[in-house]
């Protein structure tokens, strides 16, 4: 991992100083393997990917790590209900803490160190300046409950699910960077209730197939998929709670500023079976890329132009793209000479 944590002064709000380095642009997880897009159960084993890619390690830590953790702290301070867990989810909270600490310390030993002697654990997080000794299994030895403690130090949203009655129940999570959904509203829902608002997928049987697959998810064999939407301004926290904050931005997009303002938003989603609770943890890691950053990769400019131009109307509406899709298509058209794109999502 050669990416430095040197972009810690960037902000995902106010002046929106967030941007990607050329290296971060090239490792952006483009969610379109083809020039057209439709839902699918696009799950695959979450096995290590190419060096330097966002899937090199189970949990990716990139140049935005510190900035994103700061943004999360601001959101929780303003709205403590962004972190919730029902009482029976305590074992799943510890499982998630273990997953996070083991993964970070093994992937990035120069930043994170975990020392364990039985239940006595010692955690060092150098980028955030944390040094914590605690007893695994005893919440009173941590400054927060285990899920909050670890997810304040992880990028992406983290949702924990209980498995019972052949279903998965969303019964805890840290959600400060949602693409317009609410943990507080969804907590306690079953898998199909949770996905209720998604168009087309139910008719296609996507959710029942995904549920069946996830119920059999195995320990040590996590899976991943990508999802995507678009966001005006580099804002992680596009939650329904504060729509008044980000909603009006949607009217601010013009052909002149669309390249700077409109961001492709990829969710790298990971799912792990949790060992002690037999639950599942669901990672939703968000990557933002402005259109002007996107077009520095000619293949991606052509592909995203074609995807957006031909997108199914129901998806345009559900993803909240109705207003600015024409501008995005118009902007990207200048970078699409009609030549074919190579298969796969690699930059070229």
């Amino acid at each position: 991992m050669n990416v430095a944590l040197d972009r810690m002064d960037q902000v995902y709000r106010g002046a929106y100083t967030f941007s990607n380095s050329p290296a971060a642009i090239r490792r952006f997880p483009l969610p379109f393997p083809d020039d057209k897009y439709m839902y699918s159960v696009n799950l695959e084993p979450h096995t290590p990917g190419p060096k330097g890619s966002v899937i090199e390690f189970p949990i990716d830590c990139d140049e935005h790590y510190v900035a994103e953790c700061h943004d999360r702290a601001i959101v929780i301070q303003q709205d403590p209900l962004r972190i919730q867990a029902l009482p029976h989810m305590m074992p799943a909270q510890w499982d998630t803490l273990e997953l996070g600490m083991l993964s970070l310390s093994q992937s990035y030993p120069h930043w994170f160190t975990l020392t364990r002697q039985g239940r006595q654990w010692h955690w060092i997080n150098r980028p955030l300046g944390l040094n914590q000794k605690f007893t695994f299994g005893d919440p009173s030895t941590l400054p927060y409950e285990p899920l909050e403690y670890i997810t304040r130090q992880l990028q992406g949203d983290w949702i924990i699910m209980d498995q019972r009655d052949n279903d998965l129940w969303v019964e805890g999570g840290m959600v400060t960077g949602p693409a317009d959904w609410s943990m507080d509203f969804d907590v306690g829902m079953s898998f199909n209730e949770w996905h209720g608002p998604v168009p087309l997928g139910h008719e296609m049987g996507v959710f029942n197939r995904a549920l069946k697959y996830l119920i059999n998810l195995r320990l040590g064999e996590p899976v991943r998929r990508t999802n995507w939407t678009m966001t005006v301004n580099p804002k992680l926290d596009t939650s329904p709670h504060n729509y008044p904050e980000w909603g009006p931005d949607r009217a601010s997009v013009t052909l002149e500023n669309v390249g700077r303002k409109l961001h492709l938003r990829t969710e790298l989603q990971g799912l792990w079976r949790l060992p002690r609770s037999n639950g599942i943890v669901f990672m939703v890691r968000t990557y933002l890329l402005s259109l002007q950053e996107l077009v520095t990769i000619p293949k991606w400019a052509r592909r995203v132009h074609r995807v957006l131009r031909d997108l199914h109307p129901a998806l345009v509406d559900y993803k909240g793209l109705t207003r600015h899709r024409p501008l995005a298509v118009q902007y990207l058209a200048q970078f699409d000479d009609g030549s074919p794109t190579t298969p796969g999502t690699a930059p070229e």
Partner: protein
Amino acid sequence: MSSSHSDTIPVRVAAIESVTSQIKRFTLEPLRGELPAFSGGSHIIVVMRGQDRVYRNPYSLMSSPQELENYQISVLRCDPSRGGSAFMHEQVRVGTELEIAHPVNLFALAKLARKQLLLAGGIGITPFMAQLHDLRLTRVPYELHYATRSPQHGAYCESLARAEPERVHLYHDCDRHFIDIEGLLSRQPLGTHVYVCGPAGMISRVLDTARALGWPESHVHYEKFAAPPTGEAFDVYLQKSGISVHVPADRSLLEAIEEAGVDAPYLCRGGVCGFCRTDVVGLDGEILHNDHFLSAEEKASGKVIMPCVSRARCRKLALNL
């Protein structure tokens, strides 16, 4: 989507104890590192490499989920054995190296239960041994009712009764002392979950009684690992692989497919989880369904099969594999 198991964990047999004349307890320790954490009710698949074939049998983990230096399993010697349990009893010694798959829990405790009622028959005690460790950490009341043929047949009777005399109730057939299933299920408080693991007859009695008394399905849990039954030999054609495979009388369909080098999906290998469900694309006889997963309609349709336990009586079966 991958269907194959990516990793097995190499382990060494650290101890073997004879618990009864038919049951041995094996302690398995990792060759390196530590074993994965798990929840009570989980099983592992033990991969045994015999001289001319590979056995893969599921066994419940019975050791404490809080102790990960080793795992413990109990193996009942089946008579007649299809090979796996005999291999464990006769070939495996202290120091033998085996492979295991990561734990899978198809018999998990419900976390929202107000009371947990555990019913064990014979070797069916093993998943509960691990669950008792989990239950001791909760504030939820629980009871174990454990039936065996005689005290000599009852693995772990004494140690369980000694540890928690007020919660563990023992029954022995030889004393004509049986679990009063109807009485027990009719006087449980609302919110109780019942779990049963044991012989097929005991499981059906509990399921039937619970249904008759109006228990919600969601509160009744059972684990019934069917050993793959032996039967007549038959041939199977794997359409995607383009090969024919002979299934001998003493091999399961899944085992024969694996021995032919085709990677078929599986999880429990006991007809419970549904993971190996495979489409039938041709059949000139009948399928002998031995699983507990497919619905009666699916079984009657002749269009799907669970190769881990089911067979066919036919000249030719063709599968979408």
